[in-house]
């Protein structure tokens, strides 16, 4: 009887709770261990270290820790040679193998396979081909595919950056050459000069289709906004109003250019319709309004204003013109860039009581600000199109360099450049046609 009752009680309690549910609300977010096995080179000529570029891309994303080649118990090139226990023994979660071969059409094809060690299955098969000059694009395409499979967000390794090198605004005399507008791969490779000027060049901004760059030049002695067409290498002056013409920012649909003009007396935010050339004034305030940037859906602009006595981030709605202050933490918040999914704003931030400027991330929903960088004098944050990484300008041993930090703040690295002094970075949108950049 006792036993039966106890059984009934156990049954009852288990019925009350149904199936046990355990809730996990925290994690460690350690990098995921991956092995990039040296690829089999079956092609006659492989001009680039494809596997090395892929490994470097994945490492720089900060999401992966790479198993050194000397720790690999074997180096398979085909699925049949992948023994999961071997990889499990060295605590690797994913294994990437690949082969590089001539595809018979004068191109070199890289084929990769990605394996999930824990679940013992192949999760990705991908291949990309290109000419001798396109092999870095091939490698970045492989990185993008692997990154997307493993993280759920597209990779941004195939994108470009634009930046300015040369004399800086502090009158640095150690630089022998003039100001140059440059573009390069996001890893700093394949640097290319677009134009050179004896006068300052500022604020490069990519068009959404990555075929044009808007920028500010002082070549006439005073600021004017230009658009550089990457396809034709032709540039065109867009605005040269009296006073300030600065901080161009392309709308997500590519039709409008937001900018700062001071033709009415003090700097305000304007939006120029590139088709009709109609100008619309978005802010009217005696304070300084500057550094406009679009929300990903184009419905509003965020900008910096000192109307409250110190620079803070505001937002103006495109349809209604309604203005709203967004930042309340710290005594300096400027140069806002909104993440593509609208979840956060990257900005330059100075905390109350400190003198250093850092790159910080404000969570839009919660309003909390987290400082991402430890460097000082950080400037010009620009966000990767996938929202995973922030590129910014900072100073190192008295010279301007470009540095990157992941949005979670865990990974920081510097972008190599041949130039003496680099600043004003702008991360390109996704690029649909890579041969576009090879033609010039």
């Amino acid at each position, binding site marked *: 009887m006792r036993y039966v009752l106890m059984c009934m009680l156990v049954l009852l309690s*288990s019925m009350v709770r149904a199936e*046990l549910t355990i809730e996990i609300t925290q994690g460690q977010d350690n990098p995921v261990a991956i092995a990039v096995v040296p690829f089999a080179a079956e092609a006659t000529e492989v001009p680039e270290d494809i596997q090395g570029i892929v490994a470097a891309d994945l490492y720089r994303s900060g999401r992966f820790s790479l198993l050194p080649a000397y720790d690999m118990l074997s180096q398979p090139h085909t699925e049949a040679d992948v023994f999961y226990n071997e990889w499990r023994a060295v605590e690797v979660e994913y294994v990437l193998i690949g082969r590089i071969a001539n595809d018979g059409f004068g191109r070199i094809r890289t084929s990769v396979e990605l394996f999930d060690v824990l679940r013992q299955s192949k999760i990705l098969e991908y291949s990309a081909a290109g000419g001798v000059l396109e092999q870095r694009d091939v490698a970045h395409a492989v990185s993008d595919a692997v990154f997307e499979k493993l993280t759920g967000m597209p990779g941004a390794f195939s994108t470009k950056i634009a930046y300015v090198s040369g004399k800086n605004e502090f009158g640095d005399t150690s630089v022998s050459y003039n100001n140059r507008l440059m573009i390069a791969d996001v890893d700093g490779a394949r640097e290319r000069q677009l134009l050179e000027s004896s006068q300052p060049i500022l604020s490069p901004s990519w068009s959404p289709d990555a075929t044009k760059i808007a920028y500010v030049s002082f070549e006439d002695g005073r600021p004017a906004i230009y658009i550089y067409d990457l396809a034709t290498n032709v540039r065109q002056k867009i605005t040269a109003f009296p006073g300030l013409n600065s901080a161009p920012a392309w709308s997500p649909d590519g039709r409008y250019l937001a900018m700062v003009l001071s033709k009415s007396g003090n700097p305000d935010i304007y939006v120029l319709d590139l088709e009709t050339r109609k100008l619309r004034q978005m802010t009217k305030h005696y304070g300084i309004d500057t550094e406009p940037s679009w929300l990903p859906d184009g419905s509003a602009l965020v900008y910096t204003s000192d109307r409250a006595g110190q620079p803070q981030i505001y937002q103006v709605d495109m349809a209604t013109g309604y203005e709203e202050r967004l930042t309340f933490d710290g005594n300096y918040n400027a140069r806002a860039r909104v993440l593509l999914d609208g979840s*956060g704003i990257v900005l330059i931030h100075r905390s109350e009581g400190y003198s250093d400027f850092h790159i910080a991330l404000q969570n839009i929903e919660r309003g909390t600000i987290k400082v991402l960088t430890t460097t000082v004098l950080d400037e010009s944050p620009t966000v990767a199109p996938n929202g995973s990484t922030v590129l910014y300008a900072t100073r190192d041993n008295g010279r301007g360099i470009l540095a990157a930090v992941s949005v*979670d*703040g865990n990974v920081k690295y510097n972008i190599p450049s041949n130039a003496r002094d680099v600043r004003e970075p702008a991360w390109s949108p996704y690029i649909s046609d890579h041969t576009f950049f090879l033609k010039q």
Partner: protein
Amino acid sequence: MRWWRVNGWPMVLTVAIHIAVVWMVTVGWSSETAFSQPVSKPSLIKATVVDLAKPPKTADKKKTSTKTTAKKTSPKPKPVPKKTPLTQPAVKSATKPTQKPVEKPPEPKPSKPEPRPAVTPSPMDIDLSAALAEEDAAREAESEQDLVNSYIAKIMAMVESVWSRPPSARNGMQAILVVNLIPTGEVVNVSVAESSGNAAFDTSAVNAVYKVARFDDLQGMKGAMFEANFRRFRLMFKPEDLRL
């Protein structure tokens, strides 16, 4: 908007507290009653109160009442049935007298008193011991629940220590996995019962369980507890500590 900034959080907080109180009152009590139900209160009360109060008087009255007032009491059937069951407990200690009252009542009124005396003595014996057993069981279940909770905490810690969220993960995402274990704590199967809508997020959760591979702390658990709770359970992944 500014009004909302100032009053928003306090409002949300008060509403949340109200909801919490209502939830505690309703859900919390219902579970308590579910546990206390098996303990049958009425039998306990009868046994203790009545037993010692009127054993001698009732015994005397019964004999007289049953004999003399057989016809008189017929219009008043209420006192008779009440008394007869009351006498029974007293009689219990001395088992011989019970036979007489039991035999006699059937003659005047067999319809009402009979079922009671027949039923009451047996439940009382059993109910007492059963209630005690149930109390013990409830207490045991309570400590057992504590033990289960400690195992849950261990499982949580082990999974949290190896869960690497993908960069696309956001606070508020939610995936539910069904995990199957064997008594050694080894994971034999993990399946996604409810997807977060983000494949990489789901995969990161599944991989976290596979990375644990074996919940060592579950070894040595009592078989019944394992079967009831951990043979198959659900793991809900719902990050709250992300930056975005």
